[in-house]
C-alpha cells in the first residue's frame, strides 16, 4: 500500500509513503508539524472525500476542500494517489469537491486525539454522531425523520383548520347579525339558526316558484298591454281604410257605368278605323271622325279604366292590411289570454295558501273564457280596472323579495354550517393522522434505540476486555454506552466505578484513562463492522498515555491490528520512537516510519536512519561551509548516541528526566556528566582483521569534548541567532561536528553501526564481523 501526495496542504513536491501490507500495523513517528495529520487528511480526502482535520475548523466561510491545496500551488495541481493490491486510485479537487478516479479498496476510519475526546467527553448528542455509523439503522432513522416532518406538517395544517373554523364562526356571527339587525329583539344565534333551518328549503322553493310565476305573468301582462292596445287601434285604422277604399271604387264604378258601353263602342270604332285606315269617317255611322280625335277619345277611355284598376289594387291592399291587423290582434289576444290563464292558475295556487293574504284579480281578467273575448271593449274595461291590480302586483313583489332573501340566507347558513362540519371533520382526521404518524415514529424510534443498544451491548464485552488489557486490575466495570431512552440521537456513557453504579467516567478518570477508554471503544466499534475491510488511522490519538501503559497499549494495538486491513498509528511521543528505534517494540512485524523535519521547500520528508545522518555530517563537514546544517546534523547524531548510552546500552549512563518523556541534548548531557565512575570507565576497543586489539578509545574525554562544544549547537543550529555575532560560527560548528564524528568513530563500526551484541558476556560488540567491543557491562564499584 502506497500513498503519494502532491500540492496537498504542506506538501509541495511529490511525497510518497509506503505501508507494508504484510504487517498489519504501521507506526508513523514525527515531531509536531512534521506532517502526520497531513497524511491523515490525504487519506481522508481520498477515501471519504472530506477535508480531514479541517472539517472541524472554521475557515471563515471559505471552502474546506479547496483549502487542502498547497498555499503556493494551484488546486488543480493537487493529487492524492493510493496504490493497493495493483489498483491505483487518484483523487483531485474539482470545483469544490473531491473528484476521484477509481474506487479505493476498503474504507478508512480516522480517530484523532480530538475525536477521542469527543467520543468520551462530548455531549450525548455529539457522541451519538461519532458512533451512529455503527449502531444506527439509517432506514429507520430516515423514516422516523419523515414521520416527524409529517407530524409537523399536519400540526401546521391543524392550525390552518383552526383558523378556518374561526373564520366560519365569524361568518356565521356576521350573517346572524346582518339578518337580525332590523329586529327589535333579535333572537339568539342558535334559535335563529333553528328557525332558519326549520323552514324546508323545498317549501321556500315552491313558494318562491309560485310568486316567481305570478311576478312573471304580471310582468308579461304589463309588457303585452301596450301592443294589445296598438293592435286594436291598428285594426280600427285598417278597417276604416278598407271601407274608404271600397267606397271610392264604388263611386268610380258608379260614375263609369254608362261610359263602359260608350268605351266599348269607341274601341270597336277605333278597330274598324284602324282596319280601314284609308278613310276618316266612322265606319259605323260614317260621321267624319278624324284619326286624331279618335286617338284622344281612346286615351280618355283608357285613363278611366286605369283609375278603376288602381282603385281595385288599393282595395286589395287595404283588405290585406285589414286581414293582417285582424291576425295580429288575434295573435295578441291568444297570447294575452294565455297570460291571463297562467296568472289565474298562479293566483289560484297562491290563494290556496291560507297564510297569504292575496289581493284578488279583477273581473276583466276573470271573465273571458276565450281569446276572442278580449275585444276592444274588454280592453277598455281592463284599463278601467288597472288600478285595482296594483295591490296584487305590490304584494307579489314583496312576497317574492322576502322569499328570495330567506332562500339566500338559508343557503348561506347551510353553506357556513357545511363548512363548519367539514372543518371539524378535517380537523379530527388530521388529529388521527398525527396520532398515527406519531405512534409509528415512536415505534421506529424504540426499535432503532433497541437495536443500537443491543449493538452497543454486544461490543461492551470486547470494549471492557480491551480496556482492562491496558489498565488491568482497575475497579472499572460495566462500562457501557447506550442510547438515551427519550432524547433523540443521544448516546450516554457510564459504568461502575469503584463500586458505584452509573458513574460518569469523565468525572473520575484521568485524561490518559479517558483516552484509552475512547480508543478501546473506537476499536471495539470498528471490529463490529467488517474490520478486514477497514483501515484504521489513529492520528496522535494516544498522546496522553504515560510510559507505564504505553507498552501494554502497543501490545494491544499490535494484537488488535490483525483484525483489520491495516492500522496506522501516528505519534510525536519520543519514548515511542526510542523504543522502536532501538528495537524494543519491533519483535512483531511493525512498519515503523519516521518523519523528518517539515520545511516549506521540501514539505514532508521521511527521516533517514541514524547512519544516514552520520554520512550527511561527514559530507557537510567535508564541504565546511554550512554551519547551521553541520550543527543540526551533529545534534541528530549525538541524540542517537546519547539515546544509546543512556537507554539502550546494558551499563547505561544516567540522563535527567525529560519533561513529558522527551529529552533534549541538555537532559542527556547533565545526566551523563553527573556520573563519576562509569563515564571514565567507558571504552571501545577497535579490532583488526585477526580480531586482535588495534586501538582502545576512552569515551569519557570524547564525551567531554562534545559536552564542551554542545552549547554552540543550539546557538548555531536554530536558537539565539544574535549570539552568533560573538563567536566564529563556522569554526565552532566544524569543531562540534569533528568532536561528534570522533565520538562516533570511537564507538561505531565501519558501517557507522552501534554495538548491540552481548554474546561474550563482557562487552557489547557490533553485528557481523566483530570489529568493536564496548566496555564495561557492569558499572565499576
Amino acid at each position, binding site marked *: 500500500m502506497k500513498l503519494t501526495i502532491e500540492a496537498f496542504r504542506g506538501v509541495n513536491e511529490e511525497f510518497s509513503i509506503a505501508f507494508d501490507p504484510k504487517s498489519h500495523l504501521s507506526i508513523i513517528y514525527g515531531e509536531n508539524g512534521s506532517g502526520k495529520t497531513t497524511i491523515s487528511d490525504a487519506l481522508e480526502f481520498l477515501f471519504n472525500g472530506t477535508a480531514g482535520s479541517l472539517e472541524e475548523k472554521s475557515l471563515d466561510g471559505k471552502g474546506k476542500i479547496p483549502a487542502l491545496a498547497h498555499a503556493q500551488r494551484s488546486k488543480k495541481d493537487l493529487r492524492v494517489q493510493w496504490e493497493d493490491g495493483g489498483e491505483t486510485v487518484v483523487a483531485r479537487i474539482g470545483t469544490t469537491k473531491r473528484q476521484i478516479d477509481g474506487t479505493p479498496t476498503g474504507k478508512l476510519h480516522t480517530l484523532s486525539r480530538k475525536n477521542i475526546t469527543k467520543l468520551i467527553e462530548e455531549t450525548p448528542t455529539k457522541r451519538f454522531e461519532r458512533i451512529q455509523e455503527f449502531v444506527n439503522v439509517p432506514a429507520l432513522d430516515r423514516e422516523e425523520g419523515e414521520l416527524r416532518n409529517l407530524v409537523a406538517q399536519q400540526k401546521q395544517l391543524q392550525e390552518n383548520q383552526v383558523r378556518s373554523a374561526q373564520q366560519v364562526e365569524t361568518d356565521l356571527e356576521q350573517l346572524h347579525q346582518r339578518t337580525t339587525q332590523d329586529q327589535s329583539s333579535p333572537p339568539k344565534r342558535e334559535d335563529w339558526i333553528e328557525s332558519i333551518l326549520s323552514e324546508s328549503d323545498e317549501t321556500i322553493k315552491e313558494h318562491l316558484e309560485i310568486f316567481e310565476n305570478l311576478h312573471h305573468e304580471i310582468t308579461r301582462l304589463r309588457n303585452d298591454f301596450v301592443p294589445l292596445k296598438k293592435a286594436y287601434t291598428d285594426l280600427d285604422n285598417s278597417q276604416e281604410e278598407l271601407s274608404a277604399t271600397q267606397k271610392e271604387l264604388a263611386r268610380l264604378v258608379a260614375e263609369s257605368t254608362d261610359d263602359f258601353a260608350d268605351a266599348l263602342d269607341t274601341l270597336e270604332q277605333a278597330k274598324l278605323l284602324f282596319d280601314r285606315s284609308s278613310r276618316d269617317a266612322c265606319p259605323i255611322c260614317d260621321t267624319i271622325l278624324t284619326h286624331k280625335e279618335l286617338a284622344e277619345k281612346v286615351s280618355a277611355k283608357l285613363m278611366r279604366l286605369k283609375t278603376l284598376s288602381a282603385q281595385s289594387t288599393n282595395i286589395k291592399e287595404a283588405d290585406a292590411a285589414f286581414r293582417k291587423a285582424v291576425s295580429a290582434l288575434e295573435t295578441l289576444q291568444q297570447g294575452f289570454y294565455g297570460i291571463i290563464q297562467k296568472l289565474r292558475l298562479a293566483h289560484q295556487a297562491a290563494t290556496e295558501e291560507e297564510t297569504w293574504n292575496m289581493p284578488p284579480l279583477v273581473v276583466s281578467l276573470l271573465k273571458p273564457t276565450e281569446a276572442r273575448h278580449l275585444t276592444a271593449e274588454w280592453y277598455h274595461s281592463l284599463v278601467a280596472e288597472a288600478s285595482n291590480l296594483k295591490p296584487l302586483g305590490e304584494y307579489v313583489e314583496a312576497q317574492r323579495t322576502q322569499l328570495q332573501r330567506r332562500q339566500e340566507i338559508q343557503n348561506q347558513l347551510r353553506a357556513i354550517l357545511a363548512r363548519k362540519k367539514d372543518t371539524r371533520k378535517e380537523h379530527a382526521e388530521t388529529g*388521527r*393522522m398525527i396520532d*398515527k404518524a406519531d405512534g409509528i415514529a415512536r415505534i421506529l424510534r424504540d*426499535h432503532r434505540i433497541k*437495536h443500537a443498544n443491543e449493538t452497543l451491548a454486544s461490543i461492551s464485552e470486547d470494549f471492557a476486555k480491551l480496556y482492562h488489557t491496558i489498565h488491568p486490575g482497575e475497579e472499572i466495570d460495566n462500562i457501557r454506552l447506550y442510547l438515551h431512552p427519550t432524547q433523540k440521537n443521544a448516546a450516554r456513557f457510564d459504568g461502575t466505578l469503584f463500586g458505584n453504579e452509573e458513574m460518569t467516567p469523565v468525572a473520575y478518570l484521568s485524561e490518559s484513562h479517558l483516552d484509552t477508554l475512547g480508543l478501546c471503544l473506537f476499536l471495539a466499534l470498528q471490529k463490529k463492522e467488517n474490520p478486514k475491510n477497514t483501515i484504521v488511522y489513529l492520528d496522535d490519538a494516544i498522546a496522553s498515555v504515560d510510559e507505564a501503559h504505553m507498552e501494554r497499549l502497543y501490545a494491544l494495538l499490535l494484537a488488535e491490528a490483525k483484525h483489520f486491513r491495516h492500522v496506522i498509528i501516528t505519534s510525536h511521543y519520543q519514548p515511542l520512537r526510542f523504543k522502536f528505534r532501538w528495537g524494543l517494540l519491533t519483535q512483531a512485524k511493525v512498519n515503523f516510519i519516521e518523519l523528518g523535519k517539515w520545511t516549506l521547500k521540501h514539505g514532508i520528508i521521511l527521516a533517514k536512519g541514524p547512519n544516514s545522518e552520520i554520512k550527511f555530517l561527514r559530507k557537510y563537514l567535508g564541504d565546511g561551509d554550512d554551519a547551521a546544517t553541520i550543527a543540526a546534523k551533529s545534534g541528530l547524531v549525538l541524540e542517537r548516541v546519547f539515546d544509546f548510552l543512556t537507554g539502550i546500552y546494558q551499563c547505561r549512563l544516567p540522563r535527567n528526566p525529560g519533561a513529558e518523556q522527551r529529552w533534549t541534548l541538555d537532559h542527556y548531557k547533565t545526566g551523563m556528566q553527573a556520573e563519576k565512575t562509569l563515564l571514565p570507565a567507558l571504552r571501545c576497543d577497535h579490532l583488526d582483521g585477526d580480531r586482535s586489539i588495534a586501538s582502545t578509545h576512552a569515551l569519557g574525554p570524547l564525551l567531554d569534548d562534545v559536552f564542551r562544544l554542545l552549547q554552540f549547537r543550539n546557538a548555531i543550529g536554530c536558537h539565539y541567532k544574535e549570539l552568533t555575532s560573538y563567536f566564529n560560527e563556522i569554526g565552532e560548528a566544524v569543531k562540534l561536528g569533528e568532536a561528534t564524528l570522533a565520538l562516533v568513530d570511537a564507538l561505531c563500526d565501519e558501517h557507522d553501526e552501534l554495538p548491540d551484541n552481548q554474546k561474550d558476556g563482557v562487552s557489547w560488540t557490533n553485528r557481523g564481523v566483530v570489529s568493536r567491543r564496548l566496555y564495561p557491562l557492569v558499572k565499576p564499584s
Partner: protein
Amino acid sequence: MSLPENMPAILEKALTQTGILEASLAREVTTDLGVGKPIKWNLLLAKQLQLEKGGTDEADD
C-alpha cells in the same frame, strides 16, 4: 438489506399489535424499509384512516 435481521418481523408485529396499522399496511412498511425504499407516509396513513373509516361506517350502518 436496510434492516437488521429479524427486525422486519418484530417491527411488523409492533405496528399491528398496537392497532396503529392494518396488517397489510404494516407489511408494506417493513417491506419498503427492508429494501430502503422511501415510504409515502401521507398516502399510507390516508389508506389506514380510510380503512378505519370504512369499518366505522359499516358499524354506523
